[in-house]
Structure formats: structure tokens, C-alpha cells
């Protein structure tokens, strides 16, 4: 069914169709609507979900942990400060291997307090052991929310699906919805490995692990992360085969013959595609690489993509506050270390706190990259793009 939906509406629709057993959440701009719409589905009896309006995000995720450990299929939604307040429990959910799914709307972290998009919130929790999937548009947000449930449950790790705050969350686009019945059917029931509610076979969850066992338990968690890409690919393929929309691990656009490329995440991917088109019309061989699966970091697929070009512009919508520039920039330089083909790389930190990035600005980036390709020199390797007074 073709409809018009905002990113938040699309994620809420996905949640309605998934009909999770439990949703515990707390409002925060720009994610509030997801919870709001879902609450109205509950009030109208469109879902059988138990909805917990928690008194904070910390409690919201804590309740999700309890519910997921009790065997329920559990989802929540938050953003920015909310995710930051969940920080402690994010690591716990992953350590307990609970397949909770968060619909995360990316918003800049305080301070200064700001309600607009950048990626600092989810990136600040990239070590937490959660899958992180950044989506480009409303359709992808909707589809990925559904896929994430299956991925998380098969991998036994929690997952975050993100949209860009306001840009996607509040932006209405044309999307295709799956029939209500097909979604639960495709997902099937959650297979519970450790059932807390089985009183005949009582188990103890979350015990104290000293020097003698902690490393072993963490090693299991690391292994789950190290080995889950094939499962993610399988689920994406299965989803495509069933519903006709296929998603890649790394999204490559016009890369086959590209000489220079931009690497970005989230909604900027779309804007950059238009820029690519315009450059191509001028006969310039440029391409776009969009990092969709960020955790686990798809080393191989990413290497394949970024080594295709001579000059690479990495656009990070967050900074690491380390003197080293943005996250993707460092991830890519790291994986390229022992690659034999090495592109010239320039890092563009842009769009913090919702600063808009235009097609023209991206075209300028491409022009700079072409210059870099030709001259073989990167003048300044990390720049702050679009900030006043730079």
C-alpha cells in the first residue's frame, strides 16, 4: 500500500504491525511521536502490547530489560539525552544478550541543548554491544525497524535503528507499507533461550562475575558481534525476497566507475545522491557510499567500497572530541591500514546540531575531492564544514 508518512509515523506503523509484547518508553523530541502514535494504537486496541509510560529513559530501558528477560518481544524509542540516560543499561542489555529494539531518532547531545539532528547520540554508545543501523529515508526506516527485530532475536544482541531527527522523523515521504498480517507472519515468534518465567526450571540472570568468568562472558558477546554480519545479510535478503525491497550492508551509488566518492550516513545519503547526479551530468565521475550498518562495522564491504576511488570525502555528522576528527573517518583509516590500495581521505565534520547541508555544499565537496585526486594532495585533512567563522 502506497501512503505518505513521516519517519516517526513509519516507525510507529512498523511497531503496530510487529505488535510487540511490551513497549516501555519516555518522550523526547524528536522521537516523541513514535511513542505517542503507538500509545494511541494501544488506546484504540490496534495492538495487544503492554505499554509502560516510564518515569525516565533509564527506567524505560530497565523495564525493557526485565520484560525481554521474561521472554517478551520488546521495543522502545528515544533520542539524544534519553539515550545518554540509558547509557548504563545499554551495556547491560547487550551483556545479557537481550534482543531489544530501539527506534532511535538522532539528535545532538547537550550541552548546548539542541533538538536537531546530528549523530553524536548513537555514536557515543557505539561500544555498548548494540547493532546500529542508520537509515536514509522513511521507507528504509520502516523496513529496517521490522528487520531489526528479526536480526536482534537471531543474533541475541539488541539493535538500534536510527533516523535523522526532524529531517526524516518529521519529514513526510511517499512509502509502501506491508500488509498488516504479513509482518508478524514473516517475523514469527521470538525463540526464548533463557526463560525467566519458567518457575519449574528456575534460572539466575545477571549474576556477579569476577575475574574468573567476566572475560569469558564478554568474549561470547564479542563473538556474537564478530559473527553477525552474515545473519544480518540473510535477514535482509529474506526480507527482500518476501517483500521486494532489498537492502545492502553498505549502500553504493554510482560507484562502479567513480574516481572520487563521499562516504556518509543517514539522510545526507539521499542529498548526496542528487549531488552525484548533478556532477555526473557534468561528466564528473563521482559516487556515494552510505554506511547503513554501522555496528557491527562491515570491514570487508566497506573496504571494497572505499578502495574503489582515488579520493574519498568522509562526512561525519559528529566529532570524537579527540583531535582525530569524526567517527567514520577514524573507522575507515583504521580498516585501510593494511589495504594495498589507499584513497586520499579528507574528513568533513558537518551538520552538528541540525545545521543544514545543501546539494550545492556537497557538490563543492566533490569538487574539492576531484582537486585532491588531481593534485594528489590533501590540504587539510579534517575540516569543519558549514560552521560560521571557519
Amino acid at each position: 500500500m502506497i501512503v505518505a508518512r513521516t519517519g516517526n509515523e513509519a516507525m510507529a506503523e512498523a511497531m503496530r504491525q510487529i505488535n510487540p509484547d511490551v513497549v516501555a518508553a519516555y518522550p523526547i523530541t524528536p522521537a516523541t511521536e513514535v511513542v505517542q502514535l503507538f500509545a494511541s494504537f494501544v488506546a484504540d486496541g490496534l495492538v495487544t502490547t503492554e505499554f509502560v509510560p516510564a518515569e525516565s529513559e533509564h527506567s524505560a530501558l530497565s523495564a525493557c530489560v526485565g520484560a525481554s528477560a521474561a521472554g517478551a518481544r520488546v521495543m522502545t524509542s528515544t533520542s539524544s539525552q534519553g539515550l545518554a540516560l540509558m547509557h548504563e543499561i545499554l551495556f547491560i542489555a547487550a551483556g545479557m544478550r537481550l534482543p531489544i529494539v530501539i527506534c532511535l531518532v538522532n539528535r545532538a547531545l547537550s550541552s548546548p541543548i539542541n533538538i536537531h539532528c546530528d549523530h553524536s547520540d548513537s555514536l557515543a554508545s557505539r561500544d555498548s554491544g548494540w547493532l546500529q543501523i542508520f537509515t536514509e529515508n522513511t521507507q528504509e526506516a520502516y523496513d529496517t525497524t521490522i528487520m531489526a527485530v528479526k536480526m536482534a532475536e537471531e543474533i541475541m544482541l539488541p539493535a538500534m535503528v536510527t533516523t535523522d531527527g526532524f529531517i526524516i522523523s518529521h519529514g513526510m515521504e511517499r512509502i509502501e507499507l506491508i500488509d498488516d498480517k504479513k509482518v508478524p507472519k514473516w517475523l514469527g515468534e521470538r525463540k526464548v533461550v533463557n526463560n525467566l518465567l519458567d518457575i519449574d526450571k528456575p534460572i539466575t540472570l545477571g549474576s556477579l562475575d569476577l575475574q574468573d568468568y567476566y572475560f569469558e562472558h564478554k568474549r561470547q558477546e564479542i563473538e556474537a558481534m564478530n559473527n553477525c554480519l552474515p545473519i544480518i545479510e540473510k535477514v535482509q535478503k529474506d526480507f527482500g525476497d518476501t517483500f521486494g525491497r532489498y537492502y545492502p550492508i553498505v549502500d553504493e551509488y554510482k560507484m562502479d566507475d567513480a574516481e572520487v566518492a563521499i562516504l556518509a550516513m543517514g539522510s545526507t545519503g539521499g542529498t548526496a545522491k542528487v549531488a552525484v547526479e548533478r556532477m555526473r551530468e557534468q561528466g564528473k565521475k563521482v559516487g556515494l557510499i552510505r554506511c547503513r550498518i554501522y555496528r557491527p562495522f562491515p570491514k570487508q564491504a566497506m573496504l571494497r567500497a572505499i578502495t574503489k576511488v582515488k579520493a574519498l570525502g568522509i562526512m561525519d555528522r559528529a566529532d570524537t572530541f579527540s583531535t582525530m576528527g569524526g567517527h567514520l573517518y577514524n573507522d575507515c583509516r583504521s580498516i585501510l591500514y593494511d589495504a594495498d590500495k589507499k584513497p586520499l581521505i579528507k574528513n568533513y565534520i558537518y551538520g552538528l546540531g541540525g545545521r543544514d547541508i545543501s546539494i550545492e555544499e556537497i557538490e563543492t565537496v566533490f569538487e574539492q575531492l576531484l582537486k585532491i585526486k588531481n593534485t594528489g594532495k590533501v590540504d587539510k585533512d579534517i575540516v569543519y564544514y558549514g560552521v560560521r567563522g571557519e
Partner: protein
Amino acid sequence: MKKEKKGWKEIPIGLVLDSGTSKEFETGDWRSDKPIWDEKKCTHCLICWIYCPDSAIIIKDGKVQGIDYKYCKGCGICAEECPPKIKAITMVREEK
């Protein structure tokens, strides 16, 4: 208390653990004083049992069978709480 510890591939996933396994961990050797239970004096009121922090008063069909020294840490609560007129439990120093 030495036992071979499992490798990361052998332990169950999800930080799970069977309940009630503390039985395998004996705390009896923490004891410096030892409760001695006098079957003859005991009226089986079970007061000692309800107060034992280490579930070390052995009960069968509502009657005290004795003290489980595998776990008893020798706190002395049982002896203290056993009714004054009865005092069926007395604490003695663990001989070394």
C-alpha cells in the same frame, strides 16, 4: 573449592546460571564457633530454623534433624534464639 573452570565456548550464553547452585559452595570452613544441637533437649519449635541465615538447620517432616555444617558459619543466632528454658543448642569453639 578448586574446580576446573570452563572456557568461553562451553559456558551457557546470556549470563545465565542454574538456580540453587550455591549448594556446591561450602562455607562451613568460615566457622570459628560451632553450634552443637542436643536432640534430647530439642522441642522442635523450629525457631532456630526460621532465623538461620545460612539455611543450615536440617528439617525433616517438621522436625530438626541436626545442623548442616557444610554451610553453617557459626553465627550463633540459633543458640541465642533457642528458647531460654530449652537451650538445645550451644556454641563451642572450633578446635584447631
